[in-house]
């Protein structure tokens, strides 16, 4: 398989398990053993795996808040500039600072900017888009988007030693283990 053929430096070791529960278990073991640079893969998000992997709370919320405030302030500033400062007009005898009429647009722009924050922030945090990845070299890994459940311990983890990792994963009940090489 690819492990033999290519002599590039090793990216990490990929192990497959049968189902979500085993993925949680194996993730927990790996985490306990002090590995930092590892990741688990599944076709859908799995309840409780965050604890197993002891993931930090996502920072996405802050990004969205920042964008939301930007949208809010930006909208008010824009309307003020256009309606009051730059080109004031007598419209239906209303006062120039006709705040109630500004609410809808301000609201919409706040939402819009927040949504941008949420989506692009999420991709940013995930380091996406990234069109290629060493894992894609593994044919078996294709199952990760179907019904496969994988864990991969990466080579640049400080305590990464291929044999120890192999043993750990086998003991933890991996059904199949494979070495991923970075062919870039």
């Amino acid at each position, binding site marked *: 398989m690819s492990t033999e053929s290519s002599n590039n430096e090793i990216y990490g070791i990929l192990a497959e398990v*049968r*189902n*979500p*529960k*085993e993925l*949680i*278990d194996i993730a927990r073991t790996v985490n306990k053993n002090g590995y930092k640079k590892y*990741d*688990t*893969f*599944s*076709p*859908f*998000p*799995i*309840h*409780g*795996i965050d604890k197993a*992997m002891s*993931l930090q709370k*996502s920072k*996405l*919320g802050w990004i969205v808040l920042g964008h939301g405030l930007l949208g809010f302030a930006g909208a008010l500033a*824009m309307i003020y500039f*256009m*309606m009051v400062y*730059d*080109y004031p*007009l007598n*419209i*239906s005898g*209303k006062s120039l600072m*006709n705040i109630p*009429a500004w609410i*809808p*647009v301000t609201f*919409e*722009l706040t*939402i819009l900017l*927040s*949504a*941008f924050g*949420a*989506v692009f922030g*999420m*991709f940013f945090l*995930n380091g*996406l*888009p*990234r*069109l290629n*990845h060493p894992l*894609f070299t593994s044919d078996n*890994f294709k*199952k*990760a*988007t*179907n*019904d496969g459940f994988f864990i991969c311990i990466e080579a640049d983890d400080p305590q990464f030693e291929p044999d120890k990792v192999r043993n750990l994963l086998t003991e933890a*009940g991996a059904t199949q283990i494979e070495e991923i090489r970075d062919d870039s």
Partner: protein
Amino acid sequence: MSKTYEYVPEPALVKGNHDFSSINSLITDINLRPTPKGWYIAFGLSNLLLFVLLFSIGYLIWEGTGIWGLNQPVGWGWAIINFVWWVGIGHAGTLISAILFLFRQDWRTAINRFAEAMTIFAVMCAGIFPAIHVGRIWVIYWVFPVPNSMAMWPNFNSPLLWDVFAVSTYFTVSLLFWYVGLVPDFATLRDRIKSKMGKMIYGVAALGWRGSNRHWWNYEKAYMILAGLATPLVLSVHTIVSFDFAVSIIPGWHTTIFPPYFVAGAVFSGFAMVLTLMIICRKIYKLEDIMTVDHIEKMNLIILVTGSMVGFAYLMEFFIAWYGQVEYEKAIFILRATGPYAWAYWIMITCNVLSPQFFWSKKLRRNVAFTFFISIVVNIGMWFERFVITVTSLSTDYLPSSWGYFSPTIWDVLTYVGTFGLFFTFFLLFLRFMPMVAVAEIKGAMPQADPHNYDPETGDYSPQEIEIPEPNKESV
């Protein structure tokens, strides 16, 4: 008060015994297998209608707004009616994906994907009308705050301008929401499709998604936030659309009940449209296991509720007109029911208020054929609701001397019919090239996805034994 409630589990979301990969192929095979002939025929027909749309818009730009039936006093006709109608339909998608998501209604996973698709295409159809109904289409961009030769800015007091922002925001956010949901499924397709070309395209669309749980972690957060944002948004959009009328001073328009009433109406028509499409798709694409009768029933319940809300709003308008004692308002509502447009008014009442009441019967709301029929009736009714609101109020307002009757021309009709061409062209492309059910989400909603459903020792799949009561015995 010692009444004990016991947990009545939802009926299974997915019927038949499927595992992840069978579900996976059930849905994605539709995109992978060669295009069926029927699709080409349908696509050809919708393209024909699309051409009708393009032609009537071309003629409109060439000749002028006069080709429509508009007059003094009725300055808004089918264009605005169709706009509100399509936008209304466009509310179901985001509602299903956002609000039901926040309420943890997992059954949404079966339908949210193409409900969202429907939303986006419906909003596209809607968006056309405000753009082309103006007298000088070529300067429509002046409604955006862009610097121009006159150094003028748009008027932020105008509900129409609020509309511009509301609808464009709604479209953008729905699109993002939809796409975020699609990313994992694009990845699935990328990994399943054989052709190099396909791999390339889906690969790019999937942005390199690989199902990492570190990613899922942010992803779920993002999805939750988007749902949280989309919920007030979806309510605000039709509220603002209703402001087009409610903020004016025309009797029958100038009504504070409009925002809730419009939103209810939007959900009403949106769900009806989803049902219409869903009932066709599940049949053609054999998705009965995923889009089950239980789904249909749940949606019929929502139709029953929103339909009754709309009916209540109709009554309320009359009550307030009487209670407020404004002679012009009283007159307009009496004229609606008895005047020159009574025919439209009673079509509206029949379709919107009476027809959903059939769904009090469990038998009927679980009857697919009947549901299909009602879903179409409801959408006809909702079109007439907008007709009644827009036209009758204008045609008989304050000064009797200025009263005038509106009748549409062939171009009003063709433009409306044409938008179906646009809608179905896009919808067919969607069915063909994108998974019409959110694969990842539905997998996540399957019992197999729950770690607790596995034997702690052997690690084999062993779901807790809870007997699922026969839905028919339940009175939901």
